[in-house]
Each structure stands twice: as structure tokens, then as C-alpha cells.
């Protein structure tokens, strides 16, 4: 037993509650948020170090023994993602005061931001399928509040779609959990995994697996369930878009990774084979979406979809190289997507529009911004030596080991098109004649958080020698569900 596992959930929760009292005092709110976020980052880094040193930390809450009570499992995969979440959050809170209006900050932006982090960390850390649903609801509730913050007409229109689709998939989620409980008689993930191996009715289990996949696929924005995502992610403030784009879909893909490496591994030829096809289609359609639009925010939002496809491809190949590629790409994508969302937020702010056709010549006034976008595009597309390259290399290696030539071709082609879609912003927005009507605005304060994230991204790429062994150990760990089961049930 160690209470450490609950700290990444409880610190943002308390911070959120405290900030609900100070909402009218904006300066105090900003200072408190930044201090508490950095404290949380420090604590999570310590826990991560401890997990990679001494192994999984399991907490049986309320002193109830494992399969009966609720467990929190801080294993290497979960804590890696919680750490990444907190790095992103740190960049976001230093960007937020410049990007948000005072009015929005007063209307409880900071408490809801903290509740979002609570939900995301909880979803990563929980070892209980029903609790996963509960933390999904926590983060969704916070996201509902954040998406309508400001209350524009377009925000309200998009948020209705967002709320409806998420409510529907939540209903399916509980239903699927109920079915699973009916078959195996437990919601503890370790015990489900143990009993799934013993139960003989593979037919019904595969049905439940596909139902759960549908739920997580909706949240993760996989083909063909991504239609709700891009437009609703661009309507709130850039900092909120960045948090959504980096965290919410990734919680969905994490759930797929967890459930289909721990629990439903009984019919890999059916489920995981399907995943590869879905991954390919997700990449193709996501990239087509990104190429089809001239709205810079929409380009980045559409770019979330092929990234999810890449991660899905690693889960589908389900070998050591593929899975470590998935985890690597997941971490890389969370960081670089946040950086890109924050960047296009600034670009849209200084250009006065998010329509590429009305932009041009920004490089004359904002050279730093231009080169940051240029580097980000390279990181995103996976040009060596940046982090996307290592992730993609591992993914392609995994796919080739599994003899999936088609997916390799699709992945390489869509990487090229991803690069083009972001370069389009650079070429059309930064080159050419400047628009004389637009006044010059200051980018002070916007740049530092983006540079902070890009430095992390570059470190993950260039410092692969330090990072890769840790990620590889996560992949080995994921391939052997027994380790997870033992750490939870047989302490």
C-alpha cells in the first residue's frame, strides 16, 4: 500500500476546489494555478522515478483488499502518460493568462482545468473498469464546461453535438461493463483479465470487446467515429483546444491499449487484425481532412486523427516493436499536438483570422513564430532526428515484423501528407505579401510555453538513448498481462 498513487489525482482536485473560492481575484488565481501545477509536475516526476525504479505502485483505497475494493495502479505505462499530461498542463497554464480574457478566467476556467487534469490522471491510473467510466465522466463534465466557456453561438452549436455523442458513448460504456460483469462477475481489471482466460464463451467476450472498442473508438476519434471531433475541438479558446486535442482523444486510445493488451487478448487474429485496417483507414481519412481545409485550427485538429491511426497500428501489430512504437508515439503526439494547437492559436491571434487565404507575409513581423512552426511541422511528420521519427520507425518495424506491408505504405504516404498539410500553413501564412490592414500585435508570453514543449519534443527525439529503454520496458510489460495481474491481486 502506498498513498503515492492517489497524489496525481488528489492534488489537482484540491487545487480545483481552492481555485473555485478565488475566482474573482484573477491575479491570485493565476499565481495559485501556476504554483500548484508545477508542484504537481514535481510530485508526478518523483512518482514516475519511483515506479521505474521499484516497480508498480498499487493502492487499495479505503483499505479494501484488491478484487473487492477500488484499486489505483500506477504502473509504468500509466505514470508515463500522467507525467506527459502534467508537462502539457504546465505549458498550458503559463499560456492561458495571455490567451484567455479576464471574463473567461473569472468564469471558473482554472477550477475546470484542474478537474480536467483530475479526470485524465484518474483514467490513466485506475485499475477498475467501472472507475475508468467514472473518471471519463469527471473529465467529460469538465470538458463540457470548458467547451462552452465564453458562450459564442458557434460554441453552443458544436457543444450540443459534443455532449450528445459523448453521452451516447457513455451509455454504451456502462452497458458494456454490465455485460462484462455478467460474464466474469467482476469489474477489477486484473481479475477480469484472469477470468477471461478461464471462461470458455469466447463468442460473447469478443462481442463485449467490440462494444468496448466502439466506445473507446468514439472518444479516441477513430475511423469512422471521428466525425464529431475536429469542428468541436476548434471552437473554444486555443488553450482549451490544446488540452482537448492533447488529452481527451489520448485517454480513449490509452483505454484501447490497456484493455486490448491486458484483457481481450484471447482472439488476437480477429480483434487486432481488424485494428490494423481501422488504423489505415483512420490515417487516410484524417489526412484527407487535414488537406481539405484552409482553416489553420482545423488543419491541426484533423491532424489528431492520423496520429491516432499510427498509435492504433502499433496496438494492431501487437509485438514488442509495435507496442513500444505506440507508447513512444503517444507521448510524442501529446506534446507536439499541444505545441501546435498553442502555435496556431498565436498565429490566428496575430493574423486576425484563422483562414489561410487571408493570411500572408507573417514572417516579416514574427520570424520566431515562423521558425517554431517550421520545427513543429518537422517534429510532427517525423523527420529525423525529432521524436516523431523514432516513434514511426518503431511502428514500421513492428508492422514489417508482422508482415503488414500495406499499412507500412499507407503510414509512409500519410506521413508525407501530414508534413504537407502543416507546411501549407508555413508557406501560405508566412511567405508572400503581408496584409497591410492587420495591426502588429505582441507575442510576448505566448512563445515561452511553446518553446518549453518543443524542447521536450526534441529531447525525446535526440535523447532517444535515454528514453527508449524505459519505453521498451513498458512494451515488454504490456505483452505479459501476468505482471499486471500479479502486482494487483497477489501482493
Amino acid at each position, binding site marked *: 500500500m502506498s*498513498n503515492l498513487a492517489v497524489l496525481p489525482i*488528489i492534488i489537482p*482536485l484540491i487545487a480545483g*476546489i481552492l481555485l*473555485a473560492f478565488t475566482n474573482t481575484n484573477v491575479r491570485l488565481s493565476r499565481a495559485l494555478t501556476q504554483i500548484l501545477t508545477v508542484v504537481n509536475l514535481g510530485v508526478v516526476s518523483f512518482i514516475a522515478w519511483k515506479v521505474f525504479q521499484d516497480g508498480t505502485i498499487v*493502492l487499495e483505497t*479505503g483499505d479494501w483488499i484488491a478484487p473487492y475494493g477500488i484499486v489505483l495502479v500506477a504502473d509504468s505505462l500509466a505514470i508515463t502518460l500522467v507525467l506527459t499530461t502534467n508537462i502539457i498542463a504546465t505549458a498550458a497554464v503559463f499560456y492561458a493568462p495571455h490567451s484567455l480574457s479576464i471574463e473567461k478566467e473569472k468564469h471558473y476556467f482554472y477550477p475546470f482545468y484542474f478537474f480536467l487534469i483530475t479526470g485524465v490522471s484518474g483514467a490513466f491510473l485506475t485499475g477498475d473498469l467501472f472507475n475508468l467510466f467514472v473518471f471519463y465522466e469527471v473529465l467529460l463534465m469538465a470538458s463540457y464546461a470548458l467547451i462552452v466557456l465564453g458562450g459564442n453561438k458557434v460554441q453552443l452549436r458544436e457543444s450540443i453535438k459534443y455532449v450528445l455523442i459523448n453521452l451516447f458513448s457513455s451509455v454504451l460504456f456502462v452497458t458494456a461493463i454490465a455485460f462484462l460483469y455478467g460474464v466474469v462477475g467482476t469489474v477489477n481489471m486484473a481479475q477480469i483479465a484472469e477470468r477471461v482466460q478461464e471462461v470458455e464463451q469466447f463468442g460473447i467476450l469478443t462481442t463485449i470487446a467490440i462494444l468496448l472498442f466502439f466506445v473507446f473508438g468514439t472518444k479516441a476519434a477513430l475511423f469512422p467515429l471521428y466525425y464529431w471531433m475536429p469542428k468541436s475541438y476548434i471552437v473554444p479558446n486555443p488553450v482549451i483546444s490544446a488540452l482537448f486535442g492533447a488529452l481527451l482523444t489520448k485517454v480513449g486510445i490509452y483505454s484501447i491499449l490497456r484493455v486490448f493488451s491486458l484483457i481481450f487478448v484471447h482472439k488476437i487474429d480477429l480483434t487486432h487484425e481488424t485494428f490494423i485496417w481501422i488504423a489505415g483507414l483512420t490515417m487516410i481519412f484524417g489526412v484527407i481532412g487535414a488537406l481539405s481545409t484552409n482553416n489553420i485550427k482545423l488543419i491541426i485538429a484533423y491532424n489528431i486523427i492520423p496520429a491516432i491511426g499510427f498509435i492504433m497500428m502499433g496496438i494492431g501489430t501487437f509485438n514488442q516493436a509495435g507496442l513500444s512504437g505506440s507508447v513512444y508515439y503517444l507521448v510524442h503526439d501529446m506534446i507536439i499536438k499541444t505545441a501546435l494547437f498553442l502555435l496556431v492559436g498565436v498565429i490566428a491571434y496575430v493574423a486576425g483570422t484563422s483562414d489561410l487565404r487571408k493570411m500572408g507575409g507573417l514572417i516579416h513581423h514574427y520570424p520566431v513564430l515562423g521558425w517554431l512552426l517550421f520545427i513543429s511541422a518537422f517534429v510532427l511528420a517525423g523527420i529525423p532526428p525529432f521524436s516523431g521519427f523514432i516513434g514511426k520507425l518503431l511502428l514500421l518495424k513492428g508492422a514489417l515484423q508482422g508482415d503488414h506491408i500495406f499499412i507500412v505504405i499507407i503510414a509512409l504516404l500519410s506521413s508525407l501528407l501530414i508534413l504537407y498539410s502543416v507546411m501549407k500553413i508555413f508557406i501560405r501564412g508566412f511567405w508572400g505579401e503581408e496584409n497591410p490592414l492587420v495591426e502588429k500585435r505582441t507575442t510576448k508570453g505566448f512563445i515561452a510555453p511553446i518553446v518549453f514543449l518543443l524542447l521536450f519534443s526534441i529531447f525525446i527525439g535526440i535523447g532517444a538513448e535515454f528514453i527508449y529503454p524505459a519505453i521498451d520496458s513498458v512494451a515488454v510489460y504490456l505483452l505479459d498481462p501476468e505482471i499486471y495481474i500479479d502486482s494487483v491481486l497477489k501482493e
Partner: protein
Amino acid sequence: MYKPNDLILRTTTSLIAFILLGFAVYLLLAGHNSPGGGFVGGLVTSAAVILMYMAYGMETIAKIIPVNFRTVIPVGLLIAVGTGLGSFVFDVPFLSHTFGYFNVPIFGKIELATAMLFDIGVYLTVLGVTITIILNIANDQ
């Protein structure tokens, strides 16, 4: 000026609100061992408060209960999470529960449990949320 004829509503409200508030306290205290709890206690209390709002009007009740229900929500959350934090002080797993028997004058021997404190937090949160939501909808022109 239009003057509503709500004599029956007002008279019964004073009786019903009294019963509701008493029952809410019972539900809150019974919560951790038998049917009841902070959630339903909070709902019953907010039903009583809403009933009073309907019978006597916004201004009157705002004068009698000078509480901003929006700040009741974080207070309740803080109490609920605070009981969990106690586990860090006593070095037991998060949200561990304990209870003991105490001799209190007048009541005699009673059982006090830490789950009760958590329930009070839940009670305040539910009360704050319910009334904030309903008043917001009611105020919306």
C-alpha cells in the same frame, strides 16, 4: 398590481418545509449505516429550500438565508476531500474509514464515524449544486 393568491401554498409550505428539513437531517445522520446519506439528504434539503423560494419569492428568502449557494459547492467538496486527506496523516490507504463509540451527555452512548464527515461534504455539495442549477434556470428570462 397583480397580487398572487397563494395562501394555501404559503401555509402548507411552512409545515412541509419543516418536516422536510427535519427528515433531511435524519437521512444525513442515518446515512452511513442504513438507507439515507449525504446525497439524498442534500436533495431533500434543497427541495425544502426551493419550496420556500416558490412560496415566498426570491427577495424574501435571499434575506432569510443570506448564503451564496455557489460557494457552498467548493466548501462541501473541500470537506469531502479533506476527510480523504486525513488518511495521509494517519498513514493508512486513501479514504480509509474508522469509527468509535463515545458517551455524550443527554444522548448517551452514540457511534461516530469518519464516513459521517464525508457525508456532510456530499450533503453541502449536492445542496449547493441543486439550488444553483434551479435558481439559474428560474432566473433565466
